[in-house]
């Protein structure tokens, strides 16, 4: 159910996004995706704190943030059009050189975050945190591979 909702949201975001920003300026694309990443970090923070036991696990709050991250994940890839390669950013040249791999990783992120949202909604702490660990690995994998140290 939740998955369908997120898919729908994502699809509509892509459709309207595509309609409005047919050919974004490279700098705008960078700013957009950095905004998305910032918003993701904003939501991942409390989940990470719960996973580390810094704040008590709150299934409802976790689910809230997981849902948002799942939606944001669907909005991220469009911020990396090949046309934005020229703009200064933290993307490594390797990311543009291996664009199909990057795209695959972003797809993996969408799947993984959608699964996290779904599992988090069920409210089981163990299962949620296990999936969170997997999702974080997807984040980290791509950062390690394609994000410039800055």
């Amino acid at each position, binding site marked *: 159910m939740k998955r369908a909702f997120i898919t729908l949201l994502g699809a509509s975001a892509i459709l309207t996004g595509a309609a409005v920003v047919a050919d974004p300026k490279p700098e705008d694309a960078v700013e957009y995706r950095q905004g998305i990443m910032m918003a993701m*970090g904003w939501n*991942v*923070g409390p*989940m*990470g*704190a719960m*996973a*580390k036991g810094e704040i008590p696990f709150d299934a409802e709050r976790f689910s809230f943030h997981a849902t948002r991250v799942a939606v944001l994940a669907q909005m991220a890839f469009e911020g990396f059009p090949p046309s934005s390669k020229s703009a200064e950013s933290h993307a490594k040249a390797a990311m543009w050189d291996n664009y199909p791999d990057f795209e695959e990783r972003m797809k993996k992120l969408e799947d993984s975050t959608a699964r996290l949202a779904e599992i988090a909604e069920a409210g089981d702490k163990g299962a949620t*945190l296990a999936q969170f*660990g997997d999702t*974080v*690995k997807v*984040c*980290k994998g791509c*950062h390690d591979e394609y*994000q410039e*140290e*800055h």
Partner: protein
Amino acid sequence: MKDHLVPVWDLPVRLFHWLLVVAIPFSWWSAEEGGVMLKYHMWCGYTIFGLVLFRIAWGFFGSSYARFASFVQGPRRVLASLGELLDRRPLATPGHNPLGGWMVMVLLLVLAVQVGTGLFANDDLFNEGPLYAHVGKDTSDLLTAIHHVNFTILLVLVAVHIAAVAWHRVRKGEHLARAMVTGRKTLPAPAPPLVRVAAWRALVIAGASAAIVATVVNL
């Protein structure tokens, strides 16, 4: 030629060494793992922070062969010792040899940089060093990059360190790793035995090191 078994490394020196042997690989593994594991990575970093503080203090107030003054030599002495390092005979140096002494200092420096930058680092996900808030994201990102480069330097130094110990073993017939376990070195000539210091001194310095670490990470 008669061998002489001489005590050179006291318990604090040996503990320092072998705790690092556990802590550095764990730090590496937990960093590669990332995510929630960085919590333990940070605990491990605090431990190494304490170990480095302890070793620096022990270099001034510790047992004789642990003191910096006993093994930090000038460039001429280091150069003069190179020939002895290359030939097949075991060294007569009881403590650190002139080149090895500098390796100790370089390793301590690199560890200090590693710990110091780690305190301010972030992982772009949900982990931040305890002093992150004092510098902000941009400075933290720079220090994180240094943290990563410096770790590569540390790995290279560790490899050189192990290779050197292997060299001493294979080429010169010296059992340096064993000496770091037992505390006693087999030397080709008699040497002044280790001058130990009272155990309370190690305990006080360990306590002070732990207190400094606790204070710094809670700043």
